[in-house]
């Protein structure tokens, strides 16, 4: 009986921790320095975005693998593979959560996103002016994640939000357009947007996916 109780407890705890677990290819958010007035970048303190690429065992320790894109003057810079410390700029910003498109990626799409991100690791690829957010040659952090999702046929942010002059897509906008990756939260958030209770981005009601072949492949990537 005692053993059964113990087994049951372990099972429940195991299921509970899995229910909220980060999944490979989730888009993850932290803070950052914006360089723009607060009211121009949205009402959330989000400044940096990356792709969670899973975990690996290194020296007997579990290590998070995060692929993001930062200015070239960072060390490491450009599209890079890092862990929590570098992603949060030496733990100087909080971690704000893991999200995906409302149509959650399949496991094949998740594998493809991570494989593509790994294949794009380059020392210099950042668009400091944000004129080129989604590539094909240069990216910024939020554009990089947008690009990866679009390549597998998903579209985190409606296209009218992520094109145009200046810095059209901000981490806050992508955060609002995506959903927390927990089964219980997804449907509710989508319903909230449909009911327009949040009503921040009315274009969310017509989220479309983009066919993968429509999206340009970076020339550096094609060469490989």
């Amino acid at each position, binding site marked *: 009986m005692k053993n059964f109780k113990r087994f049951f407890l372990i099972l429940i705890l195991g299921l509970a921790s899995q229910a*909220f677990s980060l999944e490979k290819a989730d888009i993850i958010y932290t803070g950052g320095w*914006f360089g723009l*007035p607060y*009211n121009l970048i949205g009402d959330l303190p989000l400044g940096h975005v990356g792709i969670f690429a899973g975990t690996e065992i290194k020296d007997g320790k*579990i290590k998070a693998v995060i692929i993001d894109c930062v200015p070239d003057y960072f060390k490491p810079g450009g599209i890079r593979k890092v862990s929590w*410390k570098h992603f949060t700029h030496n733990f100087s910003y909080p971690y704000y959560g893991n999200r995906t498109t409302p149509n959650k990626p399949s496991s094949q799409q998740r594998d493809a996103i991570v494989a593509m991100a790994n294949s794009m690791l380059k020392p210099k690829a950042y668009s400091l002016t944000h004129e080129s957010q989604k590539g094909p040659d240069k990216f910024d952090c939020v554009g990089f994640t947008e690009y990866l999702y679009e390549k597998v046929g998903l579209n985190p942010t409606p296209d009218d939000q992520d094109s145009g002059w200046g810095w059209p897509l901000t981490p806050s906008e992508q955060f609002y357009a995506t959903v927390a990756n927990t089964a219980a939260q997804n449907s509710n958030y989508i319903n909230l947007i449909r009911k327009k209770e949040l009503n921040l981005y009315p274009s969310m009601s017509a989220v479309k996916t983009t066919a993968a072949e429509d999206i340009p492949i970076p020339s550096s990537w094609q060469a490989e």
Partner: protein
Amino acid sequence: MLKKTFLAIALLNPSFLLASQSADLLSALKANPGDESLISQVSKLSASDPSFMDKALNDMNLENPPAYVCALAAAVSASNQDKAYLKAAMLLGSAKGELSICLSKTAGDTKNPYASRYLENSIEDFLYNSDKSGEKDIKKKIAAINSIWALGEIGSPAVMKKLESYYNSSDEVLRINIIFSMGKLKNKKGLPYIKKIAFNPLESDAVRSAAYEMIDELEGK
């Protein structure tokens, strides 16, 4: 004539000029709350001029735009004066939504020594009084995340027990932030607890990875 004379005297009077300048400075900051140069000017003037400090503190209220209030809180707190810290902390206690999000971040940035109680209230408000079935309370959650982060930035070992008490009621996002904050507490107070998390096979790999990384930080590896 009398009116013109009065105006000339007023314009030449240093205190009038200063008052006018300070009002302009606050108006400019209200219009551009993200301007670091203006925040720095407000900070310097509030440190040297008590009457300007009072004006700035008076503008720190729930009626003004959140971005302006937070810019003021950052500016006046940089003077290291108790009354500035206290006002910012007390305002945090009654703030909601965006103001709560940015004031909790400011409390951490400025290491406000009076903010811990209000930061804890913000975390508890999310953990125990919010709708967690969807994202209706997402701003409460962001404020709670900022509050956990701020407790770490302030670094008082006294908050360790509180952070421990939040751990089991928190989802994965909050748990990762709790680990980061435990790792920042002075005297490495959080290390034994973080080790327990890292070695716990029932915890998710993502959370354990954060714990392992924080252990490396604390042990200087």
